[in-house]
């Protein structure tokens, strides 16, 4: 169940101007709500209530409808990600090749479960759907950088690279 996070919103006026500009230019696009939320998430990294309110105002779409959309799709995040976002592919190919053990090891190493962020805001961990790098299974991504053909023993070394 997705919830708005308690972490205070830190949006800048520049971000807001960028979003409002885009919304004004595209408000006549058919089915604009999804692309608008995608744009907003691209700008802010997540979709806190303040940002959804901007979208609702500019597009004249009820907030309840936007909330419905943002909670329906897995890609929309209502809480901020850690500085380093680690994603474990749990697609079938990776699963068959032991992605479960990779997830356990990450969880152990970071002290958090999937969909959580470390208290210092440094790392967040999540499971993702197949990213299509099945030839490299099992894979994880750290801020989009891909690590493949992993065994649990590789994990501490990878985390260490990002710790400082």
């Amino acid at each position: 169940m997705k919830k708005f996070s308690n972490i205070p919103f830190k949006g800048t006026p520049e971000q807001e101007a960028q979003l409002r500009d885009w919304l004004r230019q595209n408000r006549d696009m058919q089915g604009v709500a999804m692309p608008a939320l995608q744009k907003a998430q691209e700008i802010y990294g997540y979709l806190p209530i303040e940002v959804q309110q901007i979208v609702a105002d500019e597009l004249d779409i009820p907030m309840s409808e936007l909330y419905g959309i943002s909670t329906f799709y897995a890609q929309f995040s209502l809480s901020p990600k850690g500085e380093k976002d680690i994603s474990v592919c749990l697609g079938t190919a990776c699963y068959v090749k032991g992605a479960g053990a990779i997830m356990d090891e990450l969880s152990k190493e970071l002290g958090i479960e999937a969909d959580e962020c470390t208290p210092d805001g440094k790392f967040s961990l999540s499971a993702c759907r197949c990213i299509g790098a099945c030839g490299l299974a099992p894979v994880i991504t750290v801020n989009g950088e891909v690590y493949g053909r992993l065994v649990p023993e590789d994990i501490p070394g990878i985390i260490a690279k990002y710790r400082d």
Partner: protein
Amino acid sequence: MKSIEELNALRRASRKLVALRDGITGTETYKYHIMVCGGTGCTSSNSEKLIELLKAEVEAHGMQDIVKVVRTGCFGLCALGRIMIVYPEGVFYSRVEPEHIHEIFEGHIVGGNPVKKYVYSETLDEDGNVKPLTETDFYRKQVRVVLRNCGVIDPESLEEYVARDGYQALAKCLSEYTPAQVVSIVSQSGLRGRGGAGFPTGKKWSFVADGPKKYIVCNADEGDPGAFMDRSVLEGDPHCIIEAMAIAGYAVGADQGYVYVRAEYPIAVHRLRVAIDEARREGLLGRHILGSDFSFDLDIRLGAGAFVCGEETALMTSIEGKRGEPRTRPPFPAVKGLFGCPTAENNVETLANIPQIILRGADWFAEMGTEKSKGTKVFALGGKINHTGLVEIPMGTTLNEIVNEIGGGVPNGKKFKAAQTGGPSGGCIPASLIDTQVDYDNLISIGCMMGSGGLIIMDEDTCMVDMAKFFLEFTVDESCGKCTPCRVGVRRLLEKLDKITEGKGTLEDLDELEYLCNYIKQNSLCGLGQTAPNPVLATLRFFRDEYLAHIVNKKCPAGVCKALLSYTIDKDKCIGCGLCAKNCPAEAIVRTDYTAPGHKLASFEILSEKCVKCGVCMDNCKKIKAISKR
């Protein structure tokens, strides 16, 4: 481009750009084309770095007019990535490391001799001569229709696509055929939807109702885990989809199309964007295409991580900017689809066949395949198989050929157990049916389905109950919640499987599983729910003995289900080093007072009531191998 003559002129002028890749030299100043795979798999292992290094080498040698470095789409052999092919010889370098580039460039490009130690071993014959890739086991049985341009052209170059007869099919439709004739050619070819259900494409087009506004939708929301066929087409040959959608638009009378792509495919989205922009600039999209009365344009819409959006009505709801929930049918999309207008929706792979069918004729296409399944099918081979990657085979190829010849068999000397098709909607083909000819109807007759093309190979270490559970966890997660059979029913199925894998199952549970599966199949609103029980039904059908082992004997034969495992120390093998006990997180390992003959220290034992079955002890005993799990 304002006319077909201009298109033909561009084709003539561009031919020389790709001639070298057919082994024809002398049409241009370049002596070598170095093709580097820029598909998602190879890009994930940073093939970009190879391109950078190659370009630096070219520059350092002042060979800018002699060597061209091309980023292409997927070659198919993802397990061997990073991949690089050098033309005109067609030498295939596999698992290329950035450190190899200098040596390969000096030896092959400057010196003229392929550097054999980095050449893919299967492309070398006994005497060490390089043979064409098409003669390797992986490619020999493949027929490339959908993937004909993947790995051959630069996907971001319209000229290279046009050089390989690109947009000729569209030109042919506009100049020679009426819309009704196009529909009839597609019908005669026998092409069926490649998204999974296999509905005849020509029929689908013919159902599109009259109306002032109609749409073409390309379903590129490839959501089955382990499937990446559509992505590879979009990454390797994006113009082909644009051309096919324009043809579809002409056939059904639509002037606007949408491609709905998963947001998880950034490279595909980028290349498609580049291609659409270029097609628009060149007048291949827009008003009065090639001087005709036909106008057509395209837009991209990105998904946002909802599996159900691969279902056609949910996909349309999502393009409309709403929660991607499916709608009841009828009315079918052909009558009332996107924005309430008649809509034809086709999958990427289906569309990729269209230009070739138009150019080479319905009969040519219908000659490939089996009686009711024509043409080829692209599969994404994954899991426990040597040649992980993308293969395109004629319909009717046996599973045995796919796994053992093309796929190179199961690694580490393990036994083939089953192949999973169709992802969370599909079933599995057990080893006993390995000679099944793969086509739509054969797979359905064994309670399986073609699906979109994910083919996951499993060996003896895979527990089939656990596998079914894995897919149910996926569908529980992805159920949109609109209808009760799927939202509640699939969750109940998962609870039953949880119970069984924890060793608490009863025989009655099996009957209830079957009853519930059939109920969900019959009563769910959309394809997601209707097919969600398939993994359970298929494993129950072919691997009932594994379910029974979990329930009656409280054992997991594959040694996967944790709750049913037990770890034991062979007291005569144990040397008493204590490494296991030191690392045990649960302090479940203690020293006994037994010392094995020939050993100095007393053996250890595992207290089963304390053991959490994490397996750390076994990892610590890799040298001695005194610990086993059962």
